[in-house]
Each structure stands twice: as structure tokens, then as C-alpha cells.
């Protein structure tokens, strides 16, 4: 099974997300970067599918050269090939990102076996637009299920489940297909040391695409109101015990 996983380089922020002076961006000068939890699950799922059914996992990221760090992280988790898509701008909107991925997929599959499955995170960890997977699938004429929490091979296709209110929706999807998965789908592995060494040496393929203009523009980002947790001293020594029990009771853990 040929699986493509799309990941996004996003800042790893703490409780308070620092913004740039003009309020349009996250100030990333002192932040590290990562891929979102949904995408970690997507990589994990792809690696497991391929381990069970054969094939290859290709990991793709759209953005600047620094995205190689995130692609290599996925390679260290067990993906086989890495692709960087140079979209010519640092922060394309969902429409432009989807356009870039669609073009890249066509380039990658030109003359080769097409991908059987495209996996996305349900939404990115920073912008959270919930659009890219659906736009790519639509662009490529593939069926897509989003919010996927379980995925298995069933016959020639896949069976996918997602939560819907109090119930569960189950889909049978023929291949090729796309899915946007959610955290909880699996427990992603940590990259192993040998995996990391392999990833470090891996050659990444760079695909250039013609950027399309997107339609979305960030006007301003705002910090939510400061809801810093206040420290409440419940008491001292043994006298504090009843108050502690009350709190535990309130939390429903006793």
C-alpha cells in the first residue's frame, strides 16, 4: 500500500502564545517546532498499515526548507520517503496549501503508482482550519472521511470510524482514498535512535509547484483573557485534609 502523509510545521508554544508586534503572527523566535498530534497519529497509522500490508510511507510538508525537520521526524518514526514542497511563500493559506499538495501529488505520481491512501491530520495544530485534506481530496477526486478515530483494511478498501455525537459513524471506502484523522486513533511511537540516524541521512525530494493565491487573510490574532490559575492554599498540615478531600470529591476522583 502506498501511503502519503501530509504534515505541517507548527510552533510548539506554552500556555501563553507569544504574538508579533503587529499581532498577525505567532512570535516564534524562542519557540521550537513540531507536527500536531493528529498528524503524529497519521504517521503512526501509515507506518502500521505498511508494516502489516507492505508498501511505502511517503511524508510530505509544504513550506520553507526548515520543514525538513518535521519530515525527518516522521522518517524517524518509520516513514520511508520524505518530500518537501516549496510553495514559494512562507505561510500559505489552506487553499494555497491544498493547491500545492494537489500539484505535488500529481508530480509525484506522474508515471508512478498512484498513492492508495492520503492521510491528513484533522486540522493543523496552529491554524486549525480543517480544510486542507478535504480540498486536496476534492482536487484529486478522491473520497475523504474526516475526524477518523479508527481505520482498518477491509477487503479492497478501508473501514473508517468516527465519532458523531453520542454515536459512531462507520464508513467503507474504496481505494484510493483520503482520510483526515484525529488524535486517539492510535498511540504514536517515539522515534527510535536507529530511526533517527536513518532519518538524518535520508535524502529528501523537493518538489516545486506553482503557488496559487489563497483567499484567506489573517487580520489579527488576539491573546485570550489571562486565566492564569490562581494558587489557593487549602490549609496547613493535617488540618488541610478535609479541604483536600472536598476538592478530590469535586473532581470525582474519590
Amino acid at each position, binding site marked *: 500500500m502506498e501511503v502519503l502523509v501530509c504534515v505541517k510545521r507548527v510552533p510548539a508554544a*506554552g*500556555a501563553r*502564545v507569544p504574538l508579533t508586534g503587529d499581532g498577525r503572527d505567532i512570535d516564534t523566535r524562542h519557540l521550537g*517546532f513540531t507536527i500536531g498530534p493528529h498528524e503524529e497519529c497519521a504517521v503512526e497509522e501509515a507506518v502500521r498499515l505498511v508494516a502489516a500490508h507492505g508498501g511505502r510511507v511517503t511524508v510530505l510538508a509544504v513550506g520553507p526548507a526548515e520543514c525538513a525537520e518535521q519530515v*525527518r521526524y516522521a522518517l524517524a518514526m518509520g516513514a520511508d520517503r520524505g518530500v518537501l514542497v516549496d510553495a514559494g511563500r512562507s505561510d500559505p493559506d489552506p487553499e494555497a496549501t491544498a493547491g500545492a499538495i494537489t500539484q505535488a501529488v500529481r508530480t509525484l505520481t506522474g508515471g508512478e503508482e498512484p498513492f492508495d491512501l492520503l492521510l491528513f491530520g484533522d486540522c493543523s495544530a496552529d491554524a486549525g482550519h480543517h480544510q486542507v485534506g478535504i480540498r486536496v481530496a476534492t482536487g484529486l477526486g478522491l473520497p475523504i472521511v474526516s475526524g477518523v478515530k479508527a481505520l482498518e483494511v477491509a477487503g479492497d478498501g478501508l473501514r473508517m470510524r468516527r465519532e458523531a455525537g453520542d454515536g459512531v459513524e462507520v464508513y467503507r471506502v474504496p481505494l484510493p482514498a483520503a482520510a483526515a484523522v484525529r488524535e486517539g486513533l492510535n498511540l504514536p511511537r517515539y*522515534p*527510535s*535512535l536507529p530511526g533517527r540516524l536513518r532519518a*538524518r541521512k535520508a535524502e529528501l525530494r523537493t518538489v516545486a509547484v506553482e503557488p496559487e493565491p489563497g483567499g484567506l487573510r489573517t487580520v489579527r490574532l488576539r491573546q485570550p483573557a489571562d486565566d492564569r490559575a490562581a494558587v489557593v492554599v487549602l490549609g*496547613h498540615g493535617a488540618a488541610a485534609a478535609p479541604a483536600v478531600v472536598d476538592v478530590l470529591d469535586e473532581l470525582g476522583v474519590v
Partner: protein
Amino acid sequence: MTSERRVPSRADVVVIGAGIVGNSVVHHLAELGWRRIVQLDQGPLPDPGGSTGHASNFIFPVDHSREITALTVDSMRQYEKLGTLTTCGGIEIARGPERAEELRRRLASATAWGVPAELVGPGRVAELVPFVDPGIILGGFWTPSVAVVDPLQAGALMREQATAQGALTVAAGVQVTDLRTRRGRMSAVCTDAGEIETDTVVIACGVWSPRIARLAGARIPLTPVVHQMIDVGPIPALAETGTEIAYPIIRDMDALMYERQSGPDLEIGSYAHRPILHEPDEIPSIEAAALSPTQLPFTQEDFDPQLEDALALFGSILDTPGAGIRHAINGLLSLTPDGAPVLGETPEVAGLWSAAAVWIKEGPGVGRMLAEWMTGGDPEIDPHGADIARFYPHQRTPAHVRARATEGFNKIYGIVHPREQWTSARPQRVSPFHARERALGAEFFETGGWERPQWYESNRALLDEFGDRIPGREHEWDARWWSPVIDAEHLALRERVAMIDLSAFAQFDVSGPGALDYLQHLAMAQVDRPVGRLCYTPLLTPGGGFRSDLTLVRLGEDSFRVITGGADGARDRFWFTRHLPADGSVSFADVTSAVCTLGLWGPRARDVLSACCADEAGDLTNEAFPFGTARRITVGTVPVLALRVSYVGDLGWELHAPFEQGLRLWDTVAEAGAPFGIVPAGIGVYGTTGRLEKGYRLMGAELDAEYDPVEAGLALPRVKSAEFVGKRPYLAARETGPAATLCTLTLGAPAEHADESGIPRYPQGGEPILTGDGERIADRKGRGSFVTSAGSAPSLGSYLLMAYLPPEHAVEGTRLQVEYMARRYPVTVARVGRTPLFDPDDTRMRS
């Protein structure tokens, strides 16, 4: 324990920081009777987010530094008492031969400082840590007492104890917004929870310390640097031990890394990556940090090269299926220009104390040291290597700190020769002779930022003349940062005459109606001597140990010149200025930058000086200008303060001149000296060979706060009636007699100190002195005997070691051993006390 955001309006002392250092300081202050202690931290308790919270928490006690080892051993004792220490043992391993040699040196330090340790082969390493591949290592240095500790728990217990004593109020989540001073002294700490009036503040803020100190106009010279750590797991072989740590910790010294078990994981830390420095002002806030302010985003590419080293050594478990990198950080720690902590009262602000750049392994010991220092002025462990006052102004600049921290980072696990020189941020301070010295091929060593010639390549020709009296050093380690030319310069001085650049001296002018009383109060010797007389004197600590030793010149009834070594000049300046009387009766001027100094010594020194000093004051005969006196003379056209004194034990003078006329002085003396065969000589002669032959003691080597004048052989025949700092313990020491006496020992014939390859070896200092049977020697105070200074004595044809020995061994002719690179060589006690081996009656110097 009380912990809230309200702060009291007054405090006897405010301790800023609740990491291991701050917690330990409040604990020991409370133990020593301090009350109304307020402790602040910007973060929450028990882990406010500083370096204590992410440290790897293991302790290897042995360091080449006696002070650091003492602090570490004390800390381990304290952690253990608090029930927060788990002994697991530790092994420093060698992959290559150079490191194997370094481990042998490590063993010498362990013996010298009294820490049990042994060298083991690869098989034994693999027995102790079965996951290590013994095939790639040559051996290990096994220290059974290596331990892991819980510094957060230890800190919480220390705060609890101080609180229970009614001594401490803790306020967490409080930002310090300002430090107020009044007339150069602390007056208040301003916070976002109120203002606290206090005259004493301790900054124990780790990587934030420079930022806090700046609020008061003081500088704490350190920089945050990244130390990378990863956690790999779960590893079944570790998990099944069911405990936090079941195996000894490995320090893979050649790879500059360590590996320790942490429950089911293997924690791997590195000091091998590129130096990654941060700015104290750019550390993220607690809210903005993804993990904590001192756990920055991991930069994988910096760590990647280390993965292969880790896999090579620990492949058997790191390659376990399912084991992955579960946690990875760029942890911040503090690094200083010389790698040592920054402790003590800041020179800029009285009452403002620094307790920074401290590792987990030293935290509790530093707390005790600082509390003792703040209470009685006299910590039990000598603090001179960590004293914040050791830095000259240029060494406190951010540019210097960054340059040296960058250079020093990879030395943390490196092999650092005791004479190794720094290469960055040089030159800083150059004497007026510098251009001539460079032209003469000087090999410059740095002291206090000064560039000082250690020897001159221009003197290599002297080897033709003296070479047969100079044993070579076949072993590269012994010969590193050394040249036989030093010994040749020495012999040229002893036979003819040499000139030595001593411009690195720190010099102070002390004057005014109170000057005599002021100096009497600080000096052990009688200062009240006739105008024109010199006085060598120790300055003592309140506890009667050495604070300094220096020369005083009485220039007038009320005016004195103080001349002290460049290495300790900044500390001495601090000591003098802190003791100035408040009534303005003494004025103090640092004239270091105004005065240059040229030493002129050797049997022909009088001939040389006579040839260029032809004015009315130019009678240089011994009668007119006797030893131990000072006179103003003219050398050519240069007004000179000439001192008849010598640290190399030969006839001659220190010539002190206006800095801007230094070059003229050099040229005049060099020209006048040419007919007498004058050569320039370096500090190799002045500081080592000449000094050791004369048995002269060196501050920081033989002399420190842990030894007293009686032990150092520097007690004077009479005790002056005037009171002085350290007088009472000095009197007591004279009564009880020495627990150990400073002795000079000699190595035997080359064959007696040859190693297994037949190469004669030369101890470099710091090695343990053992009995003839190879037993460690310690005195009744528990202090081990070790080599304080070592060097050749070309005029005596021997190699000398200095060491303090307890009375039963301090007997001339006694045969003992020195342990060097894991081999033991016989040595003989050649001299007990201060009488020199060379020219014992000082005939040459006084002729």
C-alpha cells in the same frame, strides 16, 4: 509551610530564587541564627522553572579542583542527611589512550581529596553496567560513591526546616521589579507584591542572575548555555529493575556525554554539541515556555552526531524495539568565564551577594559556604576560586563572558591541562613592553587578562650554553605549555642578569591620616616602619587563614603603596575597599594602570642599573640602598620607584615606572644590560623555578584560607601589639602548633621517577603525597597532603614539590611517595618550613 504572594515590609535578608541554591542558603542562614529571612521566586513551588527542575541530578564527587570537590562532598553529605540521595556508583570511561591517561590523573585527584575510587578494565565496566560494549573502551574510573539526588525534595525540606525554625517566609509567584541601593549598599527589594526593606540580598537566580543583579547596578558574569538531554525508553531491561536507578552512571568522557538510567529510560546528556548561548533577557516567561523557561526547544541537528556514539556504547538497549526518544530538551545551565561558580558579595554593591553558576552537585555545599561567609566572613572551605570578586572589570563584560563560555563549553568533559591557556578575548591588557616582547618571540600566558611572557623563544640559543643542566621532558603531557627555555632563562639569571615584565601587579596607593591604622588592621606584619622600608605581609581572614600576601612600601608618613599579584588583584582590591573606614581618613587609589614594573635580577643587576642610573640618587651600593628598602631613582630619563626585593632570590630590584614611559625603561635597561649578557626572562622563572628554589609561597597554591601562617612557615618572631584581622586565631595557632607544615620535597634521579616506558615523569601539581607504604596522608584536621606547586630547580639540579605534611612526616630526609598518573614515585622531604633550598642564607639577594 507558608507560601503566598504577600511579602513582609522588612527583612534581615532577602534570598531571591528557590532552586537548590536559594533553598540551601535560607536553610543554612537559619541554622546560623538568621531570622526574618524572606525567600522570593517568580515561579511556583516546588519547581519554579529554573535549572534545578530539569537537571540530571547525578553527582560525581571527584574534580581536579579541591574547592569544588570539597563543596561536592559536603553537598552529598547534606543530600544524604535529608534522605534525598541514592548511591548508584559511576564510571568515567575512556575510549582512547589520552583519556585513559586523564583517568589516571583523575585517580590522583581522588586520592588527594580523599574520595575512594579505582581504575578498572573494560571487563569490570561491563560487569557493573552489562549494557556497555566493552569492546570499544580501554577502561574506566570507578567511583562507588557516585549518586543521584532529588534536589527539589531536598530544597522543599530545607525550606520547611527554616520555616519551622520561625526564620523564613516564602513568597512564590513574585516578580522582583527593582533592587534599591543607598550609598553603595542594598536598601530594598521591590516586587510586584510589595516592597521589602533590607540591607542584605542574595541572588540565587541561576540563569536569571545577571538580570537581577543589574537592577542594583552589579554584574554577575555568567551566561545561560544549552546542555542537550534526551530520554530514550521504554527499555524492558531497565524497566524490570523496578527502580529509578539500579546501574552505575556512565560518563562517556571521550564522547563528552553521559548515560544514566532513569526508571525504564536511559537518559543521555551531551556536552559535545556546539556551544549554544542564550541571553538572560531572552529566556521565555513561565507562561510562554512550552515546558519550562529553562527547558528550551530541542534542536535535533545539534544532537544527531552524538546518537552514533551513544548507540556504539549502549546499542544493546538503545536499539530495543519500541524504545524511542520520549523526551528531549535544550536545558539551560549557567556558565562563567572560567567555569567556576560566582559566589560572594558583589564588588559593586555592599550587602548584595551572588550565589550563581552552581551545579546540583555543589548546591547544598554552596549554601553552607555562603551562609558562613555572610555570617562570620569566613567559610570553612576556601572560596577564592569561586569568589565573584576575582573578576576584573573587563572579565565581567557580556562580551568576555560569551567568548569564554563559548570556548569553555566543550571543556566541561574535556581534558584540560593545568597550564592550558584560553585563546578567546585576547589580548586584553598588555604592558608597555609588549611590542618588544612579541618581537622576542614571547610565549604569552594570561593572568587576570594580562599578557605575560612565560618564556622567550629568542632565548632558545641559551640551551647551547645551559642545555646539559636541563633535563628534557619526554612525555608530551609533562612538556605541554612548557619549554626548556624557561630553565635556561633561569640559569642565565642566576649566572648573569635578567629582566622580567611584572606589569601585571595590582598596585594601590593608600594615604591619609588613617592610612597606617587601616593597614595595621589588615596586615599581619608590623606596618609601622620607617619611610622607605618595605614590608612583606600576609593578610589574614577572620578565621586566621590566608586572605592574601603582598608587599607594602611606606612612601611617606601617611602614604603607602600596596603591591600584589595580578592573579588576585581584583579580590585584593575588593578586600581593601570593603575595609576602608567610613570617616574618610583613608584615601584609596588603584594605580595598576598607571604603573609598569620591570624586575631586574641576577649577580650583575647592580652593574646594569648603575650603568643607566647616573643621577645624584644613583648610589646603588648595598650600604646606600640595602635590601628591603625603596628609593626613587632615575633610569635614563625615567623616574622610577626602585624596590630592593626579590621573588627569585637574587640581587636586584623591582623598577616601578610611569606606564607611558615603560618602553623607554625597557630599552634603557636592555641596552645597559647588553654588555653584561642580560636576557629577558619569563614568568616561568619568576613564578615557578626561581620561586620554588627559594621556597617562596604563592597565594592560591600554598596559601589559602584553609591554612594558617604557622603551617605555612610564615609566622613572625613577634606578634605586633596592634589588633588586626585574624589576630586571635593566629595567636591560637602559634600556641597549638601546626597540624601540617609546608615542606619542599625532591624527586629522585630520573630512573626513580620513570614510568613503565622508562620515560621520567614530572608531577605538575595537585598530586597526592603518600607514605613510603603508599598510604594516603591526612593531618589531624582531615586535610590530605598534596602537591601545591611543582617545578624544576635548575640551579639545584632537581625537581621540587611543595606540600603540607603532618608533623610525623614533616621531617627532613623522610622518604615518601607521590602518585602521578597512577604510578608512585619516591620523594624526599628536603626542607621543612620556609628556609630556601637555594642560597639558604639569602646571601645573593642581600649582597
